[in-house]
């Protein structure tokens, strides 16, 4: 009646196997981090109703095929685009915008409601420059929206917006959304894109 104990399995190589798998997954992992600049394309329309917009309310940014930038009829470096766009949007020429801190120049935009930024590009413009310009223009809007939300509600517009998007927002989300809407209405993003023209 000798009860023989079952021999124990040697688990010494367990670590090796696990390491092997671990290294495999380490190598194949690409932690995806897709972020980008979101845009809404204009819907397809057969006939565009002609819109009457004063020339001073349009800020035209043209990028040519050599990636040179012309903003408001001035040759500009990419570094200066943001500031130029901010002063255009924040101008408040007709005095109806009481939160604008701009120069109130009559030759520039009436109020943020009417101010439109247009990006014109050439078919041979590089995508890199194109995105840089887009990024700077979005940055101009974000700067102004942050300033206003800081003044009215004491938080930064972009921070709260990204917190809600990632689900990290603590507090009443609906109320915060309403506040964001309010800020967006103060500086509505009117960024249009002209069709890229063919270069001669």
């Amino acid at each position, binding site marked *: 009646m000798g009860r023989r104990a079952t021999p124990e399995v040697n688990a010494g190589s367990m670590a090796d196997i696990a390491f092997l798998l*671990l290294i495999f997954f380490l190598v194949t992992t690409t932690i995806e981090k897709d972020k980008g*600049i979101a845009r809404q394309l204009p819907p397809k329309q057969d006939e565009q109703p002609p819109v009457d917009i004063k020339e001073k309310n349009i800020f035209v940014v043209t990028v040519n095929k050599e990636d040179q930038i012309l903003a408001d009829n001035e040759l500009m470096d990419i570094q200066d685009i943001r500031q130029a766009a901010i002063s255009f949007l924040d101008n408040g020429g007709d005095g109806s915008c009481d939160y604008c801190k701009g120069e109130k120049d009559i030759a520039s935009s009436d109020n943020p409601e009417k101010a439109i930024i247009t990006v014109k590009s050439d078919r*041979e413009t590089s995508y890199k420059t194109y995105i840089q310009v887009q*990024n700077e223009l979005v940055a101009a809007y974000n700067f102004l929206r942050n300033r206003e939300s800081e003044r009215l509600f004491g938080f930064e517009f972009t921070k709260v917006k990204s917190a809600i998007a990632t689900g990290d927002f603590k507090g009443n989300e609906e109320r915060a959304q309403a506040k964001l809407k309010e800020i967006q209405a103060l500086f509505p993003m009117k960024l249009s894109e002209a069709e890229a023209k063919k270069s001669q």
Partner: protein
Amino acid sequence: MSKFNKKKGGELPAVNTASLPDIVFMLLFFFMVVTVLRKDNMLVQQKLPKADQVEKLKKDRSVFIYAGKPSSRYKEKFGTEGKIQIGDKYTDINALEFALSEARSKLIPELQGKVVVGLKVDEQTNVGLLQDVKEKLRDLNMVKIIYITAPGNDVQQ
């Protein structure tokens, strides 16, 4: 007095490695969970431009379009002109509509109306190609797009 003699051969006791597999398994599970095996084989160069005013992309409702010059190993066969890739093959601009509606039909039905098109375009591509793609997207009524970018910003303020 042998009681007080020190033990001979004072070697260091071996470190107990019994919990090593547990630790490694823990790491293993972590990486297994976060791993996304890349679905699409890249046929075009993908050096994305940098931007910092970005929003996050919602993965479950997105369709990707890649564009750029053919990767170095496909250069001889396909030249160096900018090309469009959807899924794991090159797509002609005229076949874009078909390829996109096919990609859209793979999403879950509830989200097909809210589809967002992620444009992964190499920074050396011409805007003209992008323009053609956007024109097609408007035809298809897929008007929500997002230019996927890399983090950072080259512009010095």
